[in-house]
């Protein structure tokens, strides 16, 4: 049952409670974030390959056409799944993230607006008739929008790990127009995310274009190239950690990172042999491992006072009954999603 808050002060309840064990909230955060990354990578990486892959008669190619029609749904999945990790992030490491977002307020607030513009351009491309010359421009604009979103995210979340930077930036500019001025903090991280997205996006392009040699070749090229670039930028990012690098190497993050790298290489092997189930599973797990690595790294970098577990000592007041309702709804939602997708893909009665 939901319990009455034990930390009730003289007159008013304390809001600063944790309504469930921290491990549960962190798990939900990391799980939903992984799912969000999968959808986002399929979209962002897919757009890069559709635009820059060596594909003749690109906009007439059936695989590209199919991918174009898929983009809005991938965007919908990215947005709707992305709400959950943002919600749990408030409880996991809320203070620093919120503070950093205020320092970059205008740029942060523009994220949904810019994403919306990109979204409409993706819909425009999906609805466009074959041969419409504007599609290339529309998809390019959508790509720029997504790059903006990812760049601001990287800047804000990197600044969230540096409270002293937030304070210094705010002191000079409280109007919310600032990015993290330590470009080294986020540029490699951002490039790592983008090139990682290209790697993951190449997987879906390859799956959809498995029978089109030209497309599959492009997917292989981008997957390999993306992986190499993601590795290089990842290493460069680690080198920017400075004093934090050593503790990170001693944390659980080094193990999850190793798992992520090994699985990525395995994924490459399976993908090149067109064994998509194996490659897909490895991609998902390696993305999960990278999300865990990111979490471990944040725990190392954040000062003790802002470590997720610190503010909640003695303040965990589980709301198990409400959590039970959430869990039940979540399971029903999963079933409904399964049923709707199954029905959609199996019921062709309307076509006849």
């Amino acid at each position, binding site marked *: 049952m939901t*319990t*009455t*808050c034990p930390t*009730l002060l*003289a007159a*008013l*309840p304390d*809001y*600063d409670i*944790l*309504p*469930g064990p921290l491990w549960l*909230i962190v798990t939900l955060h990391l799980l939903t974030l992984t799912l969000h990354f999968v959808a986002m990578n399929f979209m962002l990486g897919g757009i890069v390959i559709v635009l820059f892959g060596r594909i003749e008669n690109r906009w007439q190619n059936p695989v590209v056409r199919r991918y174009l029609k898929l983009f*809005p749904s991938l965007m*919908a999945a990215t*947005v*709707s*799944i992305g*709400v*959950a990790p*943002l*919600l*749990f992030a*408030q409880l996991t490491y809320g*203070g620093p993230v919120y*503070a950093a*977002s*205020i320092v970059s*307020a*205008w740029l942060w*607030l523009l994220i949904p607006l810019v*994403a*919306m513009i990109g*979204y*409409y351009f993706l*819909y425009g491309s999906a609805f466009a008739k074959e041969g419409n010359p504007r599609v290339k421009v529309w998809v390019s604009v959508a790509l720029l929008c997504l790059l903006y979103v990812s760049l601001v995210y990287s800047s804000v979340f990197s600044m969230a790990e540096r409270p002293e930077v*937030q*304070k210094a930036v*705010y*002191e000079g500019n*409280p*109007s*919310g127009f600032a990015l993290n001025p330590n470009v080294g903090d986020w540029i490699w991280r951002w490039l790592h995310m983008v090139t990682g997205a290209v790697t993951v996006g190449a997987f879906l392009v390859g799956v959809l274009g498995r029978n089109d040699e030209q497309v599959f070749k492009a997917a292989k090229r981008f997957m390999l190239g993306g992986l190499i670039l993601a590795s290089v930028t990842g290493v460069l990012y680690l080198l920017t950690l400075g004093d934090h690098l050593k503790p990170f190497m001693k944390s659980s993050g080094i193990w999850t990172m190793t798992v992520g790298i090994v699985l990525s290489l395995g994924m490459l092997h399976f993908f090149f042999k067109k064994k998509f189930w194996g490659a897909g599973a490895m991609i998902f797990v390696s993305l999960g491992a990278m999300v865990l690595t990111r979490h471990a790294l944040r725990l190392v970098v954040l000062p003790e006072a802002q470590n997720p577990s610190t503010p909640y000592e003695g303040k965990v007041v589980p*709301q198990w009954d*409400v959590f039970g309702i*959430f869990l039940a*709804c*979540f399971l*029903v*939602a999963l079933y*409904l999603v399964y049923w*709707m*997708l199954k*029905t*959609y893909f199996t*019921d*062709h*009665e*309307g*076509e006849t």
Partner: protein
Amino acid sequence: MPYPFWDVMVGYGPLMAAIAVIHVFVSHFAIGGGLYLVVAERSARKAGDEGRLLFVKKLSKFFVLTTVVFGALTGVMIWFIIGLLNPKGTEALIHNFVWAWATEWTFFFVEILAAILYFYGWKRMSAKNHMRIGWIYFWAAWASLVVIVGIITFMLTPGKWLETGNFWDGFLNPTYASSVFFRTGVCILMAGLFALLVAARYEAGDLKTRLVRGNTLWALAGLLIAGACWFWYKASIPDATWLTAKHQLSIAASALERFQWATYLLFALLAVLGLLLARMWNTVFAILLMVVGLYWFGSYEWFRESARKPYVIPGYMYANGMRVGDEAAWRRDGLLSHVDFRTGDDGADLWRYSCRTCHQVDGYNPVKQAFDHTDPGFIAGSILGIHKMKRALDPFPGSEKIRKPMPPFMGSEEEAKILAEWLWERVDQRPMHEAAGLSGPELGAAVYELRCARCHAIDGPDGLRDPLEGESEEDLREFLSDPADGMPALSGDERDQQALLDFILGWYESEKGGE
């Protein structure tokens, strides 16, 4: 205060409203539209009405593009903006309602997928399965409303949560049930308005007339449900909150008035344009109805948002993110000692963290006019006693003064002086006699209006005439130089001071003259 303060050039109120009002307009359509689509599809299929079925198809494309993209992303934008404008309030809500929000997210996810599959499924799926997905969409969307309303209404009427801190006491608060039904009516209305907009693009003819009349009746049904539930909602707002909003909060009171007359206007326009002039229905009519609908619902939301002032969670947290009950400690320690993010300009920081959430110096809900032609002493006194201000009772015939409930200043006396100096640098520093070019009783009346009338009437139950009767000028000056109960002391320009004293003493002179 562990968060920085976003010093944006526009008022927080309009910024929030610009995003929130547009979002709720579309998000309520997203729910009511789901119901409209399946009901209309079912009835068109049953009647074998191909024309109407085609209309529903067209509407579903518009529906997906509006709700899944615009609705969803403006929803995310609200999420972003509340975190920027009131991180403490957002934090309080998330800590208490995270599982409710997570539950709402599961519905949201189902809703988005169902909307997409419903749209793409027209040509692909059987009618039965297509409508099943439509129903899943509607119920998921409505369920998300049922959940989110618990959190929204908590922000106006936290109910017993203030005593227990229990989730259910906060969620099932006094205005919860009435809000769910009121908003359900709004959803139905919005679906009708959007359907009327799509119908406007049809060629004139019987089909269009039928569509317009049908959509108008649908919208009117929604308006009637919302109207009926409004009285229930109103009755469920605690008296103190209602009376404060209606009589002491000018922004809430005017929003309420706008909402009420817009209800009649919307009803009349629907009846006349949608029913009587259905054959003439066109895009201008449809846009007019949309604008009035937006204005109507926007006024309601503005009322709801401003009715809880000066709190973000009534009785618990002030609009500036400071908690009720922290006053003593903060005044003792000084506000700035609790602020992690400083800019080096203490006056500006005090202004931001204390006042800026609701006020601009000279812009939205400005303070400038309250402090023009005064002095730092008066401003500091006003700041320190701001929460004690009482409503004035028509000190001058025809001028109604409505006090805005204010949170206490949470800083030390020294900080109040710093803030006062900072404000004084930004107002018109000329004394009243110089700025207004007045003298004699007119000057006294103007100074009284500026410095006293916000709290004190001349006559009536709270009037000053009786208590000050018989005081000599010296006694009056002495009393006003060191008044009790947080009132600002007599200060500032000597000529303005003298005019004020003469004005007050003049009340009795005229009586003597009359005798």
